[in-house]
């Protein structure tokens, strides 16, 4: 059962074709969010948001047009259709080559993420109580330091899409999500402050909140971070073996494997803002970026994941993609446009943030393939090294080559065991520097949520990124200036 009559979308597609479009697509999208924000266990805000409307995309005279409206009447939709067509036509003369899409098998499908408990169980009252308990847990977990600020935010998101296009796709989906975010600051008169944010998000129902065991998570983090804060030492200045924790690995593969393997970046479509890629078309299937451990997988179909979908917003069926395979640059993420340009098929990477956003190439769930070792086995023969478990600051350049991750919870490794805490170790490394120095991975695949930003105007879409703990050989770490 859809929230919008399919007939209106079909009418929009027909209208666009009548007006001269060679391709037309109408996507109804409804995003409903609600949640609470607390500060130091006191309610600050309770609210909700409903974004509901239709996005129209057309190809006319070889020019691509997109228009969005939330006036869900024939009059409103027609206005959007005509805006998409006339404004695309107005710039068509500037195009040297027409825009075309790859031929794909599309069809009719409908799917919905099943929940154990409805999102409605997470009332403002319930979430507020959770926020109060978590703040109390944080305050009672510290021994010497003060906690001047705790922010807690949690809520639900329900996303419904209905995509219809002139090639015959009719795809309906409903994906519920639950989200939680915690920020806390530890303060000490001589040491200054330490800050940590923790984020959880996944697709599913109200049951997710309990499954995250947030009180255990924050209690352990606060106790560990107080030690790092008060006792942390500088990392060694000489190159040492570095074990990069799965939290950092997840972000790192998102940034340095996922983004550079987006075909629109490779071809330059996102050059103005999101940037291009160190990957060039002739490197695909040939160029060695890392050791045999460097296998990075992108998979929208993981049940319960944050980036979950079974069909993309162009109606193409989703499947796992191997971005890097055993050290070789392997398969970029495509939509139907880049697939046509590179003479291949789309692998279903087109996603739109909301009704007002054009579908563009996005990641879903990106992870480094785990191995079969335990963590203890991974570090057992390291005489002197550093384990970076978590991070706060990170960034990467616009070619996805030069990147930096500043560790938060980190420890020395001495004679195969975790030892004293390390404060703010800096892993500043190139993409090839990371993947070609992997000498081992453990078996613990963990995922972390994020909102990936890209596009003009900016679109944030929910993703997961993950991996095992990864061992790098002889890396020089930096320190915060």
């Amino acid at each position, binding site marked *: 059962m859809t929230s919008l009559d399919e007939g209106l979308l079909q009418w929009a597609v027909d209208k666009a074709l009548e007006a001269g479009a060679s391709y037309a697509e109408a996507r109804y999208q409804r995003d409903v969010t609600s949640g609470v924000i607390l*500060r130091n266990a*006191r*309610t*600050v*805000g*309770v*609210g*909700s*948001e*409903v*974004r509901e*409307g239709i996005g129209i995309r057309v190809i006319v005279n070889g*020019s*691509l047009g*997109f*228009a*969005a409206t*939330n006036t869900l009447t024939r009059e409103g939709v027609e*206005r959007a259709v005509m*805006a998409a067509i006339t*404004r*695309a036509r*107005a*710039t068509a*003369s*500037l195009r*040297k080559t027409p825009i075309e899409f790859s031929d794909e098998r599309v069809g009719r499908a409908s799917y919905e993420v099943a929940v154990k408990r409805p999102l409605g169980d997470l*009332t*403002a*009252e319930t979430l*507020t109580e959770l926020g109060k308990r978590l703040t109390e847990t944080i305050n009672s977990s510290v021994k010497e330091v003060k906690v*001047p*600020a*705790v*922010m807690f935010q949690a809520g639900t998101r329900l996303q419904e899409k209905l995509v219809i296009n002139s090639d015959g796709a009719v795809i309906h989906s409903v994906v519920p999500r639950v989200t939680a975010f915690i*920020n806390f600051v530890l*303060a000490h008169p001589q040491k200054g*402050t330490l*800050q940590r944010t923790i984020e959880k998000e996944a697709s599913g129902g109200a049951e997710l909140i309990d499954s995250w065991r947030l009180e255990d998570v924050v209690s352990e983090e606060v106790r560990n971070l107080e030690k790092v804060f008060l006792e942390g030492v500088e990392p060694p200045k000489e190159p040492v073996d570095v074990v990069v924790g799965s939290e950092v690995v997840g972000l790192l593969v998102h940034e340095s494997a996922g983004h550079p393997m987006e075909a629109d970046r490779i*071809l330059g479509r996102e*050059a*103005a*803002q999101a*940037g291009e890629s160190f990957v060039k078309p002739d490197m695909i299937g040939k160029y060695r970026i890392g050791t045999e451990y460097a296998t990075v997988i992108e998979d929208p179909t993981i049940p319960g994941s944050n980036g979950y979908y079974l069909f993309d917003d162009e109606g193409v069926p989703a499947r796992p993609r191997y971005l890097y395979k055993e050290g070789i640059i392997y398969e970029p993420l495509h939509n139907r446009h880049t697939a046509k340009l590179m003479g291949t098929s789309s692998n279903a990477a087109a996603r739109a943030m909301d*009704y*007002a956003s*054009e579908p563009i190439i996005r990641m879903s769930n990106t992870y480094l393939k785990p191995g079969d070792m335990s963590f203890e086995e991974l570090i057992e023969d390291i005489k002197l090294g550093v384990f970076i478990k978590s991070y*706060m*600051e990170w*960034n990467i*350049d616009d*070619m996805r080559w*030069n990147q*930096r991750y500043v560790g*938060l919870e980190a420890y020395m490794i001495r004679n195969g065991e975790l030892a004293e805490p390390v404060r703010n170790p800096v892993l*500043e490394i190139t993409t090839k*520097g990371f993947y070609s*120095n992997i000498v081992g991975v453990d078996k613990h695949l963990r995922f972390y949520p994020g909102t990936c930003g890209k596009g*003009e*105007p900016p679109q944030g879409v929910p993703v997961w990124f993950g991996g095992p703990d990864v061992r790098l050989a002889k890396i020089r770490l930096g320190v915060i200036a």
Partner: protein
Amino acid sequence: MVTALELAESVLKRLEGRFDDVAVLVRQRDYVMVKLWNTEPSVTQSWIDAKVSVLVSKDGRVFSTELSVSDPDAVDNALRNVGEILAKLEPSEIYAPLPEPAEFKPLEGLVDQNVLKAMEEPGKYVEVMIDAALKEGAERVAGTLVFGRMTKALATNKGFRGMEEGTEVEAYLRAFKGEFSGHWAHGSRVLDVNALREVGRRAGMYATITNSKAEFTPGKYDVILSPLVVGNLIDTIGWMASAMAVMMGFSMFMKVKPGDKVGSEAVTIIDAPRDTELAESTAFDDEGVPTKDKPIIKNGVLVNILHNTGTAKKMGTESTGNAGWLFPTPWNLHVAPGNVKSEEELISELKNGVIITNNWYTRLQNYVEGIFSTVSRDAALLVKNGEIVGHLGRIRIADRFTNLLSNWELATKETHKIRWWEVETPTKAPYALIRQVNLTKPFI
């Protein structure tokens, strides 16, 4: 078609008997964006929609919602259970009654008819930008050009009524020559063809400024930051000046108070909602409080934290006219110019150091300490003896905001109107010379 204010009043009428406070904010927009890829349009996007935001309170309990609808009954329907939700909550820590309406002085000149005309023929302005970049010797360009019209209306149950209509132009272009690139951006309420041409010219100029590369060793350098980089970093500082950022632990101003010195005397940052050249100019904030231009930092001293009525009450002060119902924010930012006559003269003052013309991905290890890094993109140039000797590639500023503000020494007289992805708040900024900035690059 109903006006934005009629829609706001219509929603208000349905809700005002049920709550102590009701504010209804309507935003209607008609925007077009042409996106460029390899010197040709990749997509032309349009948005014709409306958003209704509603704030209600009962006994200090506050609920806000944002709905992408144009039907008052739909808003009423969406809020039918809010009374029950509120009854189960505790009062908000930052609740303050909506203010009694104060007279506000409307801003003139927010609509440029030329922008409205340009929305139907954006192609010819795109060509102006492209041609200017190619004339500088660029081989290809990418970028966006936006024209738009936004109407905002606010109605509160305290009797405030206000409506504003404004136009916007936002343009940025990245020009490429071989492995080098340059970038420039512009944001305004009016169509200025020369400014669009300048976007192309400066992007092309930085892409072709030198063919040489220079070696880079991490360390402390004197640097010149372009208005794009100044805009990006000041955007973060402006965001941290919000009282809510301070309260939530997301601000370097958590450890200081107004009156404290936070930078050199050369640093003045102003929130400028009444600058009608910039696209977020407005005469009233989201609570109906009249806006005013005021310094955040003046001659290195923190002067104002930005407030709505709720955060102001909590901190024992007055609203600064920066609501945001939950999160006060700056409207437009001005970075005060200096006395240096030209960019060339600033390079002479630098003598030896680095020019960073663009950046992105500013992230913080710790907001309270202001520890951050950001990555250069496009031209990052080594200067020796007052001459540009070559590109340094992609390098990183990794430092503390407190150091940057303290070591801020000189700025150009001329400022530039900047808005793009990395400078969300419309900003007027000069080129600035900052001493002893920590720059890094990967070891392997």
